[in-house]
């Protein structure tokens, strides 16, 4: 039971990371109609920058803040230099162009930081475990991740639903011509949205860094999980991304934690042992397939919202 609660919290925490990535992806897709495979690279760059600044300043928080600013800057430069010419082209061009950027980022990071990878260590007060329920202890830092991401999600909600920029973002997503006809600088809006997405991805990378490892290609596999999230949630929908992130995070974590044991109960021990891990990694894709069969537009289609 304790183990179950712990795994649920782990699932929520993974879901939160996914949400940070998926929100940026889905915003960029919804507004600029752009598929960005280099989004995972920004996750990686964020982690490297934060680890570097933390090492330089000796402060975890300063590392995060400076890393976030630097990732935002990288995102903006990237948009202006490489992404802008891709707007309005077909999706194959997006995929290829941003795939090129991904190769570029992997090797430039390797060139700057070396192939070995880095660690981002937590301040000591974060290392403690807190009692979340009577008898249930959970690492302080993971709780911080969940709360921080919820806060970011809340800010994002306020930004998109309550501010003028957010209004433009929403208008831009549904009607590009109208926004430019209103005399809004759409180029600038796009740059801002891309920068925002980059910062969200970078933030996800840096807060994930202390519990995983900062390395080349760290953003690639989680990027695909984020794709699964936005397929399930519905492309362009932040609300869908939020719900689907938590679902995917929970199912993936719980599946990996419990399915191998379950498989051993139902199948012979050896078959269960060898198939269990394979089966558990298929779960979220099965969920995705199910969503595609019954709700091809995702759980929260953006257009109807």
């Amino acid at each position, binding site marked *: 039971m304790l183990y179950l609660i712990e795994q649920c919290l782990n699932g929520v925490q993974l879901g939160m990371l996914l949400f940070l990535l998926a929100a940026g992806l889905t915003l960029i897709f919804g507004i600029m109609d752009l598929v960005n*495979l280099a989004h995972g690279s920004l996750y990686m760059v964020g982690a490297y920058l934060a680890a570097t600044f933390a090492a330089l300043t000796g402060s975890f928080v300063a590392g995060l803040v400076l890393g976030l600013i630097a990732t935002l800057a990288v995102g903006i430069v990237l948009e202006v230099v490489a992404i802008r010419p891709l707007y309005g082209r077909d999706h194959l061009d997006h995929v*290829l162009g941003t795939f*090129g950027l991904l190769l570029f980022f992997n090797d430039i990071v390797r060139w700057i930081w070396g192939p070995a990878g880095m660690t981002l260590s937590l301040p000591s007060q974060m290392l403690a475990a807190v009692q979340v329920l009577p008898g249930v202890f959970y690492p302080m830092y993971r709780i911080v991740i969940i709360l921080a991401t919820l806060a970011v999600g809340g800010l994002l909600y306020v930004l998109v639903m309550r501010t003028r920029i957010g209004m433009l973002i929403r208008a831009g997503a549904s009607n590009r011509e109208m926004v430019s006809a209103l005399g809004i600088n759409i180029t600038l809006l796009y740059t801002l949205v891309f920068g925002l997405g980059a910062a969200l991805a970078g933030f996800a990378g840096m807060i994930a860094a202390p519990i995983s490892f900062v390395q080349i290609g760290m953003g690639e596999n989680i990027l695909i999980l984020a794709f699964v999230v936005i397929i399930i949630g519905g492309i362009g929908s932040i609300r869908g991304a939020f719900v689907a992130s938590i679902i995917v995070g929970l199912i993936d974590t719980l599946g990996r934690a419990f399915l191998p044991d379950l498989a051993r109960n139902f199948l012979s021990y050896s078959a269960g042992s060898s198939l269990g891990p*394979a089966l558990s990694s298929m779960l979220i*894709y099965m969920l995705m397939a199910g969503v*595609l069969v019954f709700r091809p537009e995702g759980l929260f289609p953006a257009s109807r919202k």
Partner: protein
Amino acid sequence: MIDWRNLSADWLDARKLASNPPNLRNAFVIALLAILALLPIYSALTGNYFLVTLFTRILILALAAVSLNLIMGFGGMVSFGHAAYLGIGGYVVGILAKEGINSGFVQWPLALIVSGLFALGVGALCLRTRGVYFIMITLAFAQMVYYVAIGLDRYGGDDGLTINKRSQFIDAVNLSNKTVFYYVCFALLLAVVYLVWRLVNSRFGLVIQGARSNDRRMRAIGFPTFRYKLVCFVIAGVLCGLSGVLLANHTSFISPAMMQWTRSGDLIVMAVLGGMGSVFGPVVGAVAFLLLEEVLSSVTEYSGIILGPMLLGVVLFARGGIDGILKDHSRG
């Protein structure tokens, strides 16, 4: 005017070749084929066997790129999960070999069947959607296969599995001989190119191309396009599964890395770089891309710093690929 969409015909069809003056494009294709055909002889004379190994790999991935281009270039279905079939073809060979079944007569057909079944399942789901959904869904399902392979502890899990024996056929065809294996790959590549060429110009192929061009109109004039696209998707999957079979035999090793999603990206790059409009383009693209990768990695550890922006450049400025460039020169 020569219709290159018929790959053409310029070198597959003697009549056309006789009636058209030679152009740069055909000369290029013929030269490339001659080099590929003579390469093992050159290697034997110079003792440079690395070349045979390198080009065997190039031929195998060229086959995969040709199969991808069937759905992507002609069918307009941008699959970002094509490497999954490399893995499936390879794993069928590897798993059977591990279980003591080395006969190619069992391994190969089974590998193709499993690839086809996977394509059938994925295709049935993702062809209900289009555009960016299609790209992401094919990507996601390929990633699923990747993780399943990692979960297969008995077959090496993350580390992969060494295959002790290449597929066994009759004694006359000994795949363990590098030269024989090279020519088997070469012959299969040519056969697949020819097959795809026939296919895209057949009734079936025109339906596929029509659906790429205007799916809505195709349905309005009476084509149930879904089933044609699905069959095409399955054919491409089977052909790429064949490529996976060859790849596993070539390296005598299978691992999840065979189907890492970036490999799917590489295959798309090969097709686009060579030129999606022609059947032979992806072969040119595969040769160019893999040689470039080889050269760059011998010069620098950080080839992506050059390759990445170059790719973006191709997307922005040379979308027709090498074939497009040759075509422009042939006209002028």
